[in-house]
């Protein structure tokens, strides 16, 4: 159960008042603080590998509500998290700084193509502890040390502060509400599960558990200012509001996982810490050009949303940075067609402009919910044969949710059936891009409830059509009381068989056939590249 503490604040109150310009001039504010949280152990075993996760997490969150007559509400929220993943101590032969790989991509494909046999070296685990050159080149991005993987929340960005923000509501003279929220926070747009279309304001830490953890736990909170003008109903709309979000934090990209970690999305970390086997070896990455903090490098978004009858909608616009790395080829200044000897690619994160919207609709005839979400972007850079190619992108999701009572399955509780089709269209597609011009990923969730919802089996299936890759994740959770939760699940994947020709193999070795490395990882996607990560997963959580 949560704990409530009543106290008074003086300096903080004055600071809050000043920050919000409310003219609040009281010497002290009565405040009530509520704390709660959990401790959790997640232990996962991977087929053929052994222990793949022994993650121990403690999280506490608090909310302090200040009593004030000047504002409708004034709150301070915080979430603190500490994580220790013992897999690097308990299975250090497979994961960690001492782990070694016989060839690049050995964790997801055979060594049957020339690219990983001869052209590319295996990735170096935790390069900052094994290879000073790579460490220097990757400076600032996926250059974690083993300690960072063991204790991912404790770093220079103070990630143990998951959230810390002040939120204030001010009632305007016409009855509208103005909300201002300032601090480290997550801002969630859109209506999609598992994949992100509009929910792109916060970057994501995929090294925690690929795409499978709740986004709440893997979004990387950012220092942001949000302002919402809640207009409420008018003669046409039942609800309407306009919000602005200013992400003034230093840009942070998605964390895909450093080579040597147990979860590394697309195995990108190992590719970035490998060498092209020409001469003494050319580092794949020469430099990571993360944008420095400056006003023009901050990110800005706007959303208008409302409710019209049976329909809720939003219109969104965002100028931000691509959160996935874009590889920019570095030609050799003296030898045409050959990369620079001090590194093949620079990693950049281009500016992206997004417009989009979402809508959901309740169909009375079907007694079901339809969801549609769409985003059009300009400025994204996708991988191609020799680096990157800028293209406009269209992403969309069609979702369908329905609750179904199936007495034959032994419960009077309704089952939740939720399915969605995530589509991606590359507007300026060229043949040397590994990604199809159009691709779709379908997901399905079927979840049941027994014993007053304390026993809940579910199955999640995701299928990537272009990659011909499928993930199947059945699980069952048991919540015996207010404190304990036990979950056991399987996570099984297939796929990872797709290859794609690589210009270097053609030019250097005369091999024009499909290669696994390096670009087929983009075609096989996060499901296909994880094809050897079949796991049984146990989680136990105690909440307080």
């Amino acid at each position: 159960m949560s704990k409530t503490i009543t106290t008074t604040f003086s300096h903080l109150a004055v600071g809050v008042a000043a920050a919000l310009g409310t003219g609040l001039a009281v010497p002290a504010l009565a405040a009530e603080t509520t704390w709660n949280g959990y401790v959790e152990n997640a232990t996962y075993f991977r087929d053929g590998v052994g222990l793949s996760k022994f993650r121990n997490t403690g999280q506490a969150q608090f909310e302090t509500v200040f009593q004030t007559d000047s504002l409708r509400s004034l709150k301070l929220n915080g979430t603190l998290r500490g994580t220790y993943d013992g897999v690097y101590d308990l299975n250090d032969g497979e994961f960690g700084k001492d782990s070694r790989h016989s060839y690049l991509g050995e964790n997801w494909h055979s060594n049957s193509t020339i690219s990983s046999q001869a052209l590319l070296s295996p990735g170096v685990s935790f390069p900052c502890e094994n290879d000073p050159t790579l460490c220097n080149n990757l400076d600032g991005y996926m250059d974690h040390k083993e300690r960072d993987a063991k204790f991912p929340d404790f770093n220079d960005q103070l990630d143990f502060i998951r959230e810390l923000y002040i939120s204030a509501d001010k009632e305007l003279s016409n009855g509208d509400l103005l909300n201002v929220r300032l601090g480290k926070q997550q801002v969630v747009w859109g209506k999609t599960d598992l994949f992100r279309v509009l929910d792109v304001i916060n970057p994501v830490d995929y090294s925690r558990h690929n795409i499978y953890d709740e986004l709440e736990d893997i979004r990387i909170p950012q220092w942001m200012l949000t302002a919402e003008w809640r207009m409420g109903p008018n003669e046409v709309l039942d609800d309407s509001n306009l919000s602005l979000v200013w992400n003034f934090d230093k840009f942070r990209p998605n964390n895909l996982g450093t080579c040597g970690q147990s979860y590394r999305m697309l195995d990108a970390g190992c590719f970035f810490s490998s060498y092209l086997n020409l001469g003494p070896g050319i580092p794949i990455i020469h430099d990571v050009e993360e944008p420095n903090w400056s006003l023009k490098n901050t990110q800005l978004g706007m959303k208008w949303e409302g409710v019209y009858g049976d329909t809720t909608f939003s219109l969104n616009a965002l100028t931000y940075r691509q959160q996935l790395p874009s590889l920019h080829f570095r030609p050799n200044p003296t030898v045409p067609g050959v990369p620079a000897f001090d590194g093949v690619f620079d990693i950049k994160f281009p500016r992206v402009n997004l417009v989009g919207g979402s809508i959901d609709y309740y169909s009375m005839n079907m007694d079901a919910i339809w969801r549609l979400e769409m985003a059009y972007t300009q400025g994204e850079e996708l991988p191609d044969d020799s680096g990157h190619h800028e293209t406009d992108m269209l992403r969309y999701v069609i979702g369908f949710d329905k609750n179904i009572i199936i007495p034959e399955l032994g419960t009077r509780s309704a089952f939740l059936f939720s399915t969605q089709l995530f589509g991606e269209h590359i507007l300026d597609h060229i043949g040397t891009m590994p990604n199809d011009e159009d691709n779709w990923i379908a997901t399905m969730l079927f979840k049941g409830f027994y014993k007053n919802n304390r026993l809940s089996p579910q199955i999640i299936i995701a299928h990537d059509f272009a990659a011909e890759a499928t993930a199947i994740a059945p699980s069952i959770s048991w919540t015996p009381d207010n404190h304990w939760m036990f979950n056991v699940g399987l996570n099984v994947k297939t796929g990872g068989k797709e290859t794609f020709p690589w210009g270097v193999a053609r030019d250097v070795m005369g091999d024009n056939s499909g290669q696994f490395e390096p670009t087929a990882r983009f075609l096989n996607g996060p499901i296909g590249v994880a094809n050897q990560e079949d796991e049984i997963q146990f989680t136990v959580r105690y909440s307080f």
Partner: protein
Amino acid sequence: MLKKTFLSVAITMTVAVGAQAAAIPEEVIQASFYPYKDGVPSVEGLTPGMTINQSNVDRFKDALDPGMYHFIKNGDTEMQVGETTSFDLHPSYVEATRKYSADVQLGAGHGELSPTIAGRPFPQEPSLDDPRAGEKLAWNYKYGYNWGDSAAIMPFYWTMRDMDSGKKERTIKFNFHFLNFTHRTSQDPYPKIEPNPSELFRGTYVQALEPFDVKDTQLLIQRFEDDTKVDNAYLYLGFQRRVRRLSTGQTTDAFLGTDVMIEDFEGYNGRISDMNWAYKGTRYMLMPFFSHNELQLDNETHQDSDGYQVVAFGGQGGCFPNITWQLRKVYEVDSIPIDQNHPISKRTHFMDAQTFTIPRTVVYDRKGDMWKNWVIGQAHPDHHLPINKGTGVAIDDAFTMIDMQAKHCTTGQFKGIVDPALSPVDKFSVQNMRASGR
């Protein structure tokens, strides 16, 4: 919506071209709102202060609903008898009935009603000869004074219990808020709040506070004036941080795993048009009406600075509220789902004739067997929190929903507060759910 507009026009024209309906006779008003003015009912041998238990329950079988009779006969609980007291509704609601209800008529279709403004739509005594008497009583319930124009339950403890062992499995702590957008009589503005483009009748907003796994879960139900329109229901899940629409399948589902469906809230929380309503007769029955301040209360579950304590529970498995029961005038009404796939075959409601609350409901499964018993204890507002005095609201104060087949129950302990400041209009919006979440 269009259908209702046509109906309204048709009825308005009928009224316009015909004679103006006569005012409701004052004796009808008096009989409807003050049934105990000339004396309280009695049953031979039944006296305030006595206890009905396994040994004497058969003597009072006619004064008990079948569910409570079963539990007492089985030794699961005993019933303390209290004095019958009048729960006078707020005078503004009575006056609105005088002013607006003379012209109210059922529409031709099921779930259709002529335009109403406020007050009890059908204050006349129901008749067994009237095939639509049950429907009229259902409308009286829907537009009843209930929680008044707005109120909050802060906090609201729901405890899931094993009836055999008495083990408390889970306790969920909520805040509930209610607001009438229309049919308002006592809180400014009345009779309606504007703008209201979708013509909402009522909003119910629920926020889960504890335990951690459901913390920040929020539910918003918007009911329309047009009863043929399905409620809008929205759910905010804390871990997803976004608002999801709910299909109605979830309104007949176990709400957060409790024994209560969303459709069960307050006795019945659905459309009139979802059910066939059958009036079965008027009875004098023991009903869970009491004075909160005169009970032995639970001093463990909730403490706060004003000293308020919630109703205690006892009996088999701790499934029964420790309250007193009054002999009261009751309308027995069956509601039978029109949807053949509905998880129940019928509910038998025992509507309190004076307040038109539904403090007792017996739920039957699809085979027709008794499945659940729903008790919502009503506290007199003048013997509760000081702020509730004079509000004329029968305060929902303790509930139990007992699943007799699973031997399981969910109990509810309330702190009901009739204070419009706790339930502003913007609390009943989708945007508020996003803003109130993390």
